[in-house]
């Protein structure tokens, strides 16, 4: 399960020279050029291993319903297209001008033909339209009563996920949404600033996250795994870097995860970590970030860091969650993510080291 996650870990572009990559890619292109588009088409249907954001490997009831409809339109579309191309090719070959050929007869039209080519497309469209309408109503039905409700909030450029608890509290995490397999999930989509769009292709279609509205997605994850997604509505500079992932657990594992997330932050034991804690909770960080169980308890505009170390990535899927990337992030968020809403606080390398040490204990 983790291998794919690793594969997607963002590799810094500086690691490989641009020329080398392009040449090697050209070579691989040449190798693949022979089977050409066929390979692509097959690859397209092929697994989420190569294409973690594919729409062709649906893993929820919602995604499967869409997939059926989408495949129908693809078959029909390819069929119509191929038919038109064949007719066109035939005509162009058969009726090309030949020297000495007589001038063609002047035909002005034919009512039967006109009716035929009005009706045939109409029938084909009806074949798409009926399941379309049916799927629209099926996929937008109200959620079942036992559905797990998750509050999703889009921020420029990260995601916040909240799990309302029976006691009225909400457990917050960022950029990684955890769900149990087999239970309907209803996402309540809201935005903190501009329009975003929530999209995890293998879980189903996207839905815009519109400020001033509450949108919904209802789906039941069917298979354990990690599924990648990203924001799909242009939302400013770093729209490309507003990613997320969904982790589908066995129900028991999910409960375990949730129980862990409900815990307050781990208390430091190490003295360096203690320094880090102080820098974070007493410093500027607390103005935006919350760490439950510490004095940093009021920040609402930034990811909740209580269990930040338990996440696979940071900064909405852009960096790995390791010391090096954390350092890079805190050192200069904007160089990682253009216009990131977290300021560059001009911290000294030492301070950052302590902070990172602390953050890494927040498991």
């Amino acid at each position, binding site marked *: 399960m983790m291998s794919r996650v690793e594969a997607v870990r963002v590799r810094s572009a500086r690691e490989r020279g641009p020329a080398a990559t392009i040449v090697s890619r050209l070579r691989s292109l040449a190798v693949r050029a022979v089977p050409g588009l066929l390979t692509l088409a097959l690859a397209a249907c092929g697994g989420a291993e190569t294409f973690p954001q594919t729409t062709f490997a649906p893993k929820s009831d919602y995604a499967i319903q869409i997939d059926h409809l*989408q495949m129908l339109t693809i078959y029909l579309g390819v069929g119509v297209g191929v038919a038109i191309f064949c007719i066109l090719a035939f005509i162009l070959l058969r009726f090309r001008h030949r020297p000495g050929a007589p001038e063609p007869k002047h035909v002005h039209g034919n009512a039967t033909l006109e009716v035929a080519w009005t009706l045939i497309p109409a029938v084909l469209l009806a074949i798409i339209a009926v399941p379309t309408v049916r799927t629209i109503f099926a996929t937008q039905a109200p959620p079942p009563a036992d559905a797990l409700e998750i509050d999703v909030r889009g921020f420029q450029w990260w995601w916040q996920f909240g799990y309302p608890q029976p006691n009225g509290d909400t457990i917050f995490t960022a950029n990684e949404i955890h769900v149990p397999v087999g239970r309907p999930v209803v996402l309540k989509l809201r935005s903190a600033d501009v329009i975003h769009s929530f999209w995890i292709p293998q879980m189903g279609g996207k839905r815009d996250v519109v400020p001033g509205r509450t949108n919904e997605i209802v789906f039941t994850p069917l298979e354990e795994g990690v599924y990648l997604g990203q924001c799909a509505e*242009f939302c400013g500079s770093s729209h490309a870097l507003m990613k997320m992932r969904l982790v589908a657990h066995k129900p028991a594992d999910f409960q375990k995860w949730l129980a862990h997330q409900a815990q307050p932050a781990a208390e430091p034991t190490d003295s360096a970590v203690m320094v880090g804690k102080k820098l974070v909770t007493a410093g500027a960080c607390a103005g935006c970030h919350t760490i439950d169980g510490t004095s940093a308890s009021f920040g609402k505009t930034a990811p909740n860091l209580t269990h930040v170390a338990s996440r696979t990535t940071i900064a909405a899927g852009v960096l790995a969650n390791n010391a090096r990337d954390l350092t890079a992030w805190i050192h200069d968020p904007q160089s990682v993510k253009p216009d990131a809403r977290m300021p560059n606080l001009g911290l000294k390398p030492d301070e950052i080291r302590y902070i990172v040490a602390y953050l890494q204990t927040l498991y």
Partner: protein
Amino acid sequence: MATTTATAAIPAPAVAQPKTGLWSWITTVDHKRIGILYFWTSLSFFLIAGLEALLVRTQLIRPDNHFLSANWYNQLFTMHAVTMIFLALMPLMAAFFNYVVPLQIGARDVAFPRLNALSYWIYLFGGLFLTIPIFLGKMPDGGWFNYANLSEPAFSPGLNIDFYVLGLQILGLSSIISSINFIVTIINMRAPGMRLMRMAPFTWMTLITAVMMATAMAVLTIALTELMFDRFFGAAFFDVSRGGDPVLWQHLFWIFGHPEVYILILPIFGIISEVIPTFSRKPLFGYNVVIFSGILIGWLGWGVWSHHMFAVGLGPIADSFFAVSTMLIAIPTGIKIFNWLATLWGGSIRFTTAMMFATAFIATFTIGGISGVMHAAAPADLQQTDTYFVVAHIHYVFFGGTVMGLFAGIYYWFPKMFGRFLDERLGQAHFWLTFIGMNITFFPMHFLGLLGMPRRTFTYADGLGFDTMNLIATLGSYLIGLATLILAYNVVRSARAGKRAPANPWGAAMLEWAMPSPPPEYNFATIPVVRSRMPLWEGSNVLAEGIPHGREMEDTEEVTFAGAKLGKVSYPDDENIMSADDLGIHLPPPSVLPILLALALSLFFASFLGSHWLSLAAVICVALLVFAFAFEPGHSGH
């Protein structure tokens, strides 16, 4: 009887028209010259917009590329689209409207020659206004549909969006004025006998387009005005904190935007309906049906806008309605495709470059149309929207449709406009590179989209499987770039040094081919009487007798087609061409007011970036110039 003397001969005004020189172009009110101005200006913008696309593609050539920063990328893809749509393709169509439509209906000029010039100059100034921010690095960066509330001052405080709002206001004005002009021209300036159902298909599609433009642009004007009020006066239209709803912008934009995309394809349907019959030597199959399906597309185009908003969450009823209404449009469009195929069927097809573009159009546009229908299946669109699948659709309809069709039009009408052929050898190279290049560029985008690549992303990570296809697409775009450079070279060279073209080089059927290439400034020495839908193919003696070219008979050679006389070859630099004065034809005198009024109007919108005093000054200038316009001697109209 073949001629009428319908024209009342009015003595020419004392002031002779200047014929050459910069000033004559600045003050021209001749629809043909204005058409040529549109032609060169829009081609230049096409190169700029294409260059922007190439930069975008270069950034995407490999994962995690650092060729462009996010800010530049966002500006470039926005300006690429805005420039292509508003500054390159719509005006290139206007070039043909201007040049061809009056000739096709047998008119001496458009109904309001000065307003026509005004439209051009407003377009030019609007285009230049949108070029300024390139140099400031402050181009619009909200995408071509510039969704609120990202475009609100709170989230986009810079000048970028201001340029978008004001620039499009200026351009919208130009479109509204010219569309009104063309509606009136086509309804009211037809030659005797040119009944509505005898009009050339291109003229028909121009009429429908103009009607859509006059109405749709008004909606855009209001959407922009509301955003303008939010940005400049603190109004609350799209401010969520005061209850504003960003989705309203989407409704207004797409009520305009969807008709807009049909505005960009209907004239192409007209061009194709001219080129295909000409080069298969057969009349257009099902003329009536083609025209009526065009009208139907124009109507239905108004009731589908929310198919751009399936992901917004409008509820199942609205989604179903818009999904089905959208699918309906495939029927009239399909009818056109089938009628073109039937026109080709049994024809004697000649593969000139124009014809190659036209037939390739059928294939590429069909691909785009089919991906459109896939979008219309609303739940499936939830997977496709805002991904490269949409980008593939956009470019198969815009490039495979609009651009291919315009290229066909360029090769077809260039001889008429410039009296010279475009080089056919270069043309063939241009065609094949374009055709292959565009499929290499845009076809993989279908897969990219369905495999999960969102659009408008300045970069993508390694490991998502996007690399190879992006590389292919980028290489393909360089091929298109190369092809476009060939075209640019070809038009520039051939306009001066191409092979001379006779009056009717292609043996075509429509009235514009009855005049020398290029036609004299007064078009027809005597307004012809039209007896047929294809005046040069049917009853060819009408032409031989009926349309004198204002020249001596012995300087002409006959064009024959299928043994029938079609027209006469003539040469542009012919000394014997008679001028309008010689013939006693009254033409409206040149006027400097259009460019001045255009300047004042553009200044008014630009002044929002400056001071209110500037706005006031601009308003006063506009008012004074409108008076001058209304009372200018030698002109009528207002």
